[in-house]
Every structure is written in C-alpha cells, then in structure tokens.
C-alpha cells in the first residue's frame, strides 16, 4: 500500500485503493491513458494480477483496464495514509 513516499501503480497490491498523482509518458500516450481513466486525481484500485503474465487489471473511473506492469510503473500515486480515498466513485 502506498506509504509516505510516492509509489507507483505497479506496486499496488490487489484490493488496495490509491489516488493517481502523475503519468510519466510522452504526451500522446499520456492523453490516451487519461482518456481511459488514468487521470491525476482519480482513485484507482488493483483488482487482480494476471498469473503467469505481467498484466494487472485495474479499476479506474468505473471501468476495468488491463495494463502491463512496465506501463503501470510509470504511473505514480499520491502519497496518502492507508484507506484515504477522497474520490471514491461508488461504482
């Protein structure tokens, strides 16, 4: 779970929710990821890590999106105390 240091999405354990801080991609990739819901300020949770592969499935802005670990590693999370969840989107 994200601690005091800024953490990245690939290290989010299944079941834990955090808030996206920034995306470290070139502009076009950044826009596409935001359009798919990975927007700074959005809360994101890891639903499951796909076994054998290096994919993980995230719940963000009400949809499920599969990302490779290496992509998730470039999405940083807001430092927050456990369970703080300012933008929980009930669904």
């Amino acid at each position, binding site marked *: 779970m994200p601690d005091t240091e800024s953490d990245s999405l690939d290290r989010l354990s299944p079941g834990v929710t955090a808030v996206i801080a920034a995306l470290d991609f070139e502009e*076009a990739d950044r*826009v596409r990821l935001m359009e798919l819901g990975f927007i700074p300020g959005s809360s994101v949770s890891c639903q499951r890590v*796909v*076994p054998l592969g290096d*994919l993980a499935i995230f719940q963000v*802005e*009400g949809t499920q999106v*599969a990302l490779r670990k290496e992509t998730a590693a470039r999405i940083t999370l807001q430092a927050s105390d456990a369970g703080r969840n300012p933008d929980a989107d*009930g*669904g």
Partner: protein
Amino acid sequence: MPTAVEPGTATRHGSPSENRVVAICGPPNVGKSSFFNRLTGLRQKVANYPGITVEKRLGSLRLEDGGQVDLIDLPGIVGLHPRSEDERVCVEILRGQSDTLPRPAAAILLLDSTNLQAHLRMVPGILGLGLPTLVVLNMADELEARGGSVDTKAVSAQIGAPVVLASAVTGAGMEEVVRFLRGSFAPAGKVELPVINNIPAERQWAHSVAARSSYHAPEPSLWGRRLDRIFLHPVGGPLIFLAVVIAVFQSIFTLAVPIMDAVESAIGVSAGWIGALLPDSMLKGLLLDGVWGGVGSVVVFLPQILILFLFIGLLEDSGYLARAAVIADRSMRAVGLEGRSFIPLLSSYACAIPAVMAARTIENQRDRLATLLIAPLTTCSARLPVYALLIAAFIPERPLIGPFLGTRAAVLLGLYAAGFFAACGTAWLLKSAVLKSKPAPFVLQLPAYRWPTIRSLTFRLVDRSKIFLRRAGTVILVTTIVLWFLASVPYQNGEPPPIGESLAGSIGRTIEPLVEPLGLNWKIGIGLITSLAAREVIVGTLGTIYGMESDEGSPALQQALQAELSFGGAIALLMYFAFAMQCMSTVAIVRRETGGWTWPAIQFAYMLVLAYSTGFAAYRIFG
C-alpha cells in the same frame, strides 16, 4: 415487411438537399450498435468507408409523418484524440472533415448511465463540436435494477443539451429519442462548459455534474468479479479458454449437420423443379449445373458459418473476448507481438480483410506490418466450406473423447491449430529478423460481463448472412458462370464436349504437372485456379466439374472426390488451403495497406511455398 430503403442516399421527404443524417457516437460498449439496431430495425446495411475499410453501418428510420432520418453507427471513441484508424474516422465525420461523408446534421451521444460520472467527461468535447446533440443515458434497465437513479432534467440544465434516460434492450425512452429525431435540429443554447483538452478539469466537472444531478451510482455488480476470478484463474482460465474453443468446433459439425442436410435437399428438390420447368437448352445447363450446382454447393455451408459467428458474437457480447485477450497476451509476447495484435488476429478467423484493416489500431508500424502479414495464415471462414467438404468425405467420424470430441472436429481443430502455429512461427521469424522493435505498451479496456441478447445476436447473423450471400451472388456466381462456359466450349456436334476435352479441361491438363506432386488431378487444379478469387469457390467449381461429367445427374460431390482423390491427396489439399494465400481481395488489401507490391508479393510467395511444401510432405507421408 417495410420496403428496403437505400440508406444514406436521398431523403424521401422534404427537400432533397435537407440533411437528415444523425451520427451515433460514444465510448465503446455503451450500446451504440444495440441502440442503432433498435431504431433502424433491419433497414440497415454494413459497408466500408471508401478508401479505408473500417466498417460503417448506415440505417434509416421512417417517421410516422413520412419523413426519414438516416443514422450512422460510429466506432467507439474515448475522447477526441484518435489514435487508431477507426477512431480517426469517427472524429473526422463528427468534425465534418471526412472527404466521403457530409457532416451529420445532428449527433446522439450515447453514455452508460451506470457509470455516469466517468462518462459525462465526453460531453464537453462532443458538444464543443457544435452539432445539435442529444445525450442518451443508456442501460436505464441496469441502472434501475441495481438501485441507481439520476435526475435527467438536472443533467440537461447543467450541460445545456437535451438528455434522455433510455435502454436499447427494453426500448424505454425511445419515444423521446424519436421526438428529437423529428425535431428541427436547432443548435442548443450556450452553457459554460470546462475548457476542452483539459482532461483532469473535465473529470472534475463531470463528477460535480453527476453529484448535482442527484446521481446515485448503482451497486457494483459482484458477479463480474466472481466471473473474473474464474475466467482469469491461473489454471482454470487457460483451460476454460481451451474448452470454449473445442466446444465451438465440435458444434460446427454436430449442430450444423441437420441444418445443412435440409439446405442441401432443398437445393436438390428445387433443382429438380427447375429442370422439369425448363426445356432442354444451353441455358438450362447453365442454370442447373453452373448456377444452381455451383452456388448451391457453397450456400450449403451458410449454417456452419453462422454457427461460427454465433459463437464469436456470444463471446464478444458477453465480455469474455477481452478476458481471452488478457490470457493470450503472454503468448503474443512470446512471438514478439504486442497483445493488441490479438484482436486483429482473432477477427482474421472470420476474414483476413477486416483483420488487415484492424491492424491499423496498432501504432507500432513494424508490429502492424507483422500482424497484417501473418493474418491470412489464420483460418478464415472462407476455408471452412473447403475443410468441411474434405473432412466429411475423407475422415470417418469416430468418438475420441467420449461424446465431446470426435475425429472430424479434431481434424478441423488441427487445421485451425496449423494456421495458428504457422502465424505465430512467421511472426516470430519476422520479429526476430526483419521487423525488430521494442514492445509497445498494452492497454486494454475490459467491458462489463453481460448476458448476450437474442436481438443483438440476430442482427449479427443477419449481417453475416447478407455478406456471405452477397459473395455467393457476385464473386462466386461470376466465377462459376465463367468456368461453366470454359467447360462447355468448344461444342462437338452441337453438344457440349466431355469435360476433359473442353477449354477448362485443356487449361487443367496444362497445369496438371504442377499439382501432381501433391497427389491432385487436373480437376482439382482448375479449382485451385478459380479459388484464387475466393477460397470457397473451389467447392462450387468441383460441383460444376463433377456435376457436368457424370451421366446420370450430379453424384454427391463427396463420393466423386472419394473416387478421385487418395487420402494423402486430400490431406495435401487441406494443407494447401491452410497455408496458401488463395484470396485476391486480401492481396489487394495488403497492397493498399503497405503502399506497394513488395510486401504482398513476398507474402504470396512465402505462403505458396509453405502450402506447396507441406502439401507435398503430407502426400508423401499419407500416400
């Protein structure tokens, strides 16, 4: 049944110049196609956007005052920054920048009411395009069933556009949609919306609009997660994937057989009627042997193709397909492709042409090239009639795994596997030599699980039948007629010659030395040439050739083949069809997509060598 109207041509009502084209747009999987189907019914057609072949669906809606509105079902977009070809088409049409379609007069933005606060983010961008827009919050049935609610008037007041809560499944809210379509498409009043192109600001705005519209999000559905736990299970997931694939192939044989028998006897009976009605003449020969025999022997396979598409439809509509892509990602990576290549490759099981087109969604040019080069190796539905005929003629049916898998389905499965592994091997070769590149990021949205609806499946099958029958009525019909003429000249003593002495016969004999090493005779050789037009043409060709040769009417094609081909020859022919690029439309599409003849020539030669050598080996082994 209402008379068919050619959609997208002229409006029958009002001045002909009056533009009544309405575009349906929105994110993927919000129900755009279902909504479009609900409004247009069967008065629609699937076509390709000229120049680029992304499917477009046009339909029309008759209003009770006699007027007509034309609707376009656009590909899904997640924003106004298109990355793939189909998204680019959608945005260009909405912006009025399309060379081929005029700007629509109005738009319907479809959003998912069960995920409103996220989807409202699309509103500023679309309204900013300046088209009169109706915002439809779809899936009202699901919103209600899961205890959610929304005040549409409040949403409408905040976004400055009419808003309707509707369901494409139950039909709720459709009268209001029709009222909008009947209206005068006046531009809406100005309302302060957040700056476009600032996604975080749009998100903030969307969440606050939802909050101020007393939006109660529905309870999350728990069974979606439970299903994921099963379908993405480390061991269970891949096993289920395999089981699903096997079930599809087994039912292509078991379910389709009685229907095919019925179609076949219907064709036979009707041929008898036509034969009795017409006086003996050359025209009668053309109609009976050429058209009825040739086209009929292809149409028989419609049930099998429909069953294949029924399964693809079930998998896609239920949401399972995206999970299968997740499971396949690792294997795609192993051969050096990105997971995104999985979707075009999957659609190449239907037809290589849309697959070559769909490869445009791949941004990495080298991966895209690799994908479109291997797409024709996967088993498209045009191979199915050829496989089905040869398997039925040469493989005796025996149970292998109890009632679940018989020998015939297993051979079919093996052929699909052969195509699949050839595609993977070729991809690996290409990616480790000529087309090396860094792997691209893989992002895939997983739609919610849903019960597929009979309606949506029906529309898919009607679409497929139209496409298949159109092919049977054009390419296949023309090749059959040309072949029939070649086989009927030169006349000897006022009679058509024996097939061996006809023009077709001499062509066949000329190429016989080429096909002999595969254990094939000159008749099959003719089929290999005619089927360059489309693979399934060979069935009709053989129907025509054998139908004409026999004295007492048409012997069943299977028996004719059994008499003329050895087992090894049949396997060689199967191999040839598995690997050869017997499809000129695909060659043409690859030429257009790669901008030259180099790649299609390499591809054609490569596949021919693969087909010929495996066919040769098979004939040696199985004799």
